[in-house]
């Protein structure tokens, strides 16, 4: 009996291994062509909602042009380094790398240099000195302060158009701010530049609360529960570093009876995820900022493809390089006025 169960267990393990390996085989056969160059791509982790759209954009633009060697780095730089070695040995003509840890760029550049391969980093920005150290290294991304600036502009425009939002009529915008993970460059930049932009537009502000919601809907909802109970209608604006937290705040506001009748609270986020677009359409969210996944994927692929074919990276594209050899894809403000444009990004 014991032997039988042992054999059964072994069978299960062998079968599951076989099942896994066969699925990876079919993956690589579908992406391999004859004349097309192999481009090695790593994504820092597959289940990041933004990166999943960048990944899809890269795949879409690569159809018929190149065969992609796609890797999920599972949020581990060590895994990614191994994947780079594998891609190089598989004969990739260029690398498109979404770093796990931006500080690790030098290691990747060393590997690429040794194999004389061009490398395009995207979405996570390596240090400028690393890009400068290798003539075949480029970057595709955004200017991280820009998302905060644009969020600030969305707030300024909406605030000026709705004087009634200043509930106590004191001419001061009393806001609460849901911050992302402290120390995260995006969280720091968005917090600073959103508020700076509002102040620069001549609006006086008062910070009622600022706490980290760790990018998380559930945490943001619980913070907002406490803040509504503490400040009530004294809160005149809810600023969130990302849409996930903005949506959490909206859940809390809903439960507290906001968005019914004329009880309203302006909420602003960043990312333009589908759920946030729906809330904007429902009138429960004022605006968000689109981090343009489609165009980041497009630029990443076009640069990686050009350099794989031995052409100039910008050959036949709409992009320009800045001083640090980087293509900066602009952020876009999204409100009810241009919601269709944002929805297009998910089609």
């Amino acid at each position, binding site marked *: 009996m014991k032997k039988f169960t042992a054999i059964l267990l072994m069978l299960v393990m062998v079968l599951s291994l076989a099942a896994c390996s066969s699925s990876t085989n079919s993956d690589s056969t579908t992406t391999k062509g004859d004349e097309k160059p192999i481009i090695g791509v790593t994504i820092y982790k597959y289940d990041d909602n933004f990166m999943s759209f960048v990944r899809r954009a890269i795949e879409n633009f690569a159809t018929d042009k190149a065969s992609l060697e796609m890797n999920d780095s599972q949020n581990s730089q060590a895994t990614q380094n191994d994947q780079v070695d594998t891609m190089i040995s598989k004969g990739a003509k260029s690398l498109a790398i979404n770093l796990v840890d931006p500080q690790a760029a030098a290691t990747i550049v060393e590997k690429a240099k040794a194999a004389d391969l061009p490398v395009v980093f995207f979405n996570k920005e390596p240090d400028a000195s690393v890009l400068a150290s290798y003539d075949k290294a480029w970057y595709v991304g955004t200017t991280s302060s820009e998302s905060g600036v644009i969020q600030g502009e969305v707030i300024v425009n909406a605030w000026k158009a709705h004087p009634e939002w200043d509930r106590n009529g004191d001419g001061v915008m009393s806001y609460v701010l849901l911050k992302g993970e402290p120390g995260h460059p995006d969280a720091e930049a968005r917090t600073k530049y959103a508020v700076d932009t509002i102040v620069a537009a001549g609006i006086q502000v008062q910070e009622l609360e600022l706490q980290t919601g760790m990018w998380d809907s559930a945490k943001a909802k*619980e913070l907002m529960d406490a803040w509504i109970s503490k400040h009530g209608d004294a809160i005149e604006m809810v600023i969130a570093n990302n849409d996930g937290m903005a949506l959490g705040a909206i859940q809390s506001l809903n439960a507290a009876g906001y968005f019914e009748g004329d009880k309203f609270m302006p909420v602003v986020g960043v990312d333009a*995820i589908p759920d946030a677009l729906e809330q904007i359409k429902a009138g429960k969210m004022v605006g968000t900022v689109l981090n343009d996944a489609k165009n980041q994927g497009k630029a990443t692929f076009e640069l990686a493809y050009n350099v794989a074919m031995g052409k100039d990276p910008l050959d036949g594209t709409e992009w320009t390089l800045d001083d640090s050899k980087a293509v900066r894809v602009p952020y876009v403000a999204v409100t009810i006025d241009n919601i269709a444009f944002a929805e297009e990004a998910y089609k």
Partner: protein
Amino acid sequence: MSVNTIKKKLNKQDIGHFLMNNAIIIVLFALMLVIIALEPSFVSLKNFTNILAQASTRTIFALGVGTIIVAKGTDLSLGRQVGLAAVISASLLQAPNYAYKMYPDLPILPVIVPILLVMLITGLFSGINGLVVAKFKVDPFIATLGMMVIVYGVTSIYYDRPPYGAQPIGGLDPRFANVAQGSIKLGGITIPFLVIYAVIAVTIMWFLWNKTRFGKNLFAVGGNSEAAAVSGVNVGRMLIMVYILAGLFYGLGGSLEAARIGSATNNTGNGYELDAIAACIVGGLSFSGGIGSIAGIVTGVLIFQVIAYGLAFVGVNAYIQYIIKGLIIIIAVAIDNRKYIKRK
């Protein structure tokens, strides 16, 4: 020795016992006093119901894993099972007119159907945990560690799929959202539905622990499984039942969690197992098994919720909240151990 001095001694011992047995409740009240001193507006009905509502799903999780702990086990896969339940129930209960549905052609289901379905699924995964622990004698820590990773993989495969990839599953059907976010008014007091579910879950579990053969066997197996086996308890079957029961609670709680948050991702529930286990231990359950009470579990959950809510209300730095939470876990277990040593 006169009768009087004996009485005095007893009294002293009694007070000592009382302090030790209720130390954690005393800590809770001390913390609340500090919070109230810093922010007097903390004393309000709204805050009270907020805390209870936020503690509700956590209570359900803690009841599940608490039962396993009494049976001398543990369950690290709790958080990931909650995530699986949240993702599946959310995907099956999106609003019919939501533009980014996972299943665009799915008919409108009665809310209870997906909830029962995920309870079945988590009950199954948890049952496998129980089987591995009971029949293959794998240490519960290891068995559920493995299951934690497996379930995360399963959830991620389910979650990261076309047409929209790894997007938070939102746009929940208002019927479903209302299940967790709604409330009823009773004479001026707003009682969130969540609190009612938690009370029902607590009642059911209290009944199972204290009024059934299952409860007697649970404590017997947890206290001394050899002795239980000798006295005719089928220990293996008992363990499997305990894990399945916990799984049912995870499934229910996970669905409510999705409805409460309003969306779900494959990271929903991440780390909840540690919160739930910590609450159980602080509430007086022991990893040595066979010790614990439902009231203890509820107290443990409430302590952490009061701290989390109160400190956020006062505006204490999030990092300092971690330190306070950690200290409470260690102090509570230190006290618990003293009780245990004395009994020996």
